[in-house]
């Protein structure tokens, strides 16, 4: 997602990471109880994981995250006026870039004075399931996160 953000920046596409709540709280990154802790975890996302996009922090009660459906790692694309034009319950860079190519083409068509009418579409996209990386992430969160995931899903 960071690589794509760099490619799209020169085409007037912004990219941000919105920090929500701890999906898999563990001993090293426990559940959030204060904004101070939430800022600290968000900074570690930048410093430890290496997210290079601007990171924004939601309110402690997750008002923005909850409004958009509270999925642990979803992606939405918005127009500059605040209209969602794409929403995906999981994040997949190829899906997002495919959608952005389409919307940038729409922008070019509008600039070419083509008359366009919006309509809504649904489709099913596919993401890579990197089990090894996911479990490494759980181990980074702490043994509690590993144990609880196994108990919930047997993975």
């Amino acid at each position, binding site marked *: 997602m960071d690589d794509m953000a760099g490619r799209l920046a020169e085409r007037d596409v912004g990219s941000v990471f919105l920090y929500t709540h701890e999906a898999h709280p563990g001993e090293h990154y426990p559940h959030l109880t204060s904004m101070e802790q939430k*800022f600290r975890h968000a900074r570690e996302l930048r410093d430890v994981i290496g997210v290079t996009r601007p990171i924004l922090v939601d309110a402690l009660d997750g008002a923005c995250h909850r409004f958009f459906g509270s999925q*642990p*790692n979803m992606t939405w694309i918005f127009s*500059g006026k605040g209209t969602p034009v794409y929403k995906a319950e999981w994040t997949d860079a190829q899906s997002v870039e495919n959608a952005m190519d389409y919307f940038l083409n729409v922008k070019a068509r509008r600039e070419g004075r083509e008359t366009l009418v919006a309509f809504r579409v649904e489709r099913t996209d596919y993401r890579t399931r990197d089990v090894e990386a996911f479990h490494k992430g759980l181990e980074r*969160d702490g043994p509690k*996160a590993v144990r*609880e995931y196994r108990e919930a899903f047997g993975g």
Partner: protein
Amino acid sequence: MSDSDLVAKYNYDSFVPDKFRPWLNFAASPPTGRIVGDFPLWNLDETETSLHAVLSGHSYTIVEFGSFT
């Protein structure tokens, strides 16, 4: 639900289905194509901004939701 209950339940302390499943509500999320309301957000330097302020800076903005864990 009181504000403190909401904060505690949203920031669940254990990944157990009874605690995380109630929050997964993507099917009821806003439709595309309609302007959404604004929400306060904060930069990492703890200065306040808002969703609309962020979105207004570009033709389109990609927003990935997530956390360290």
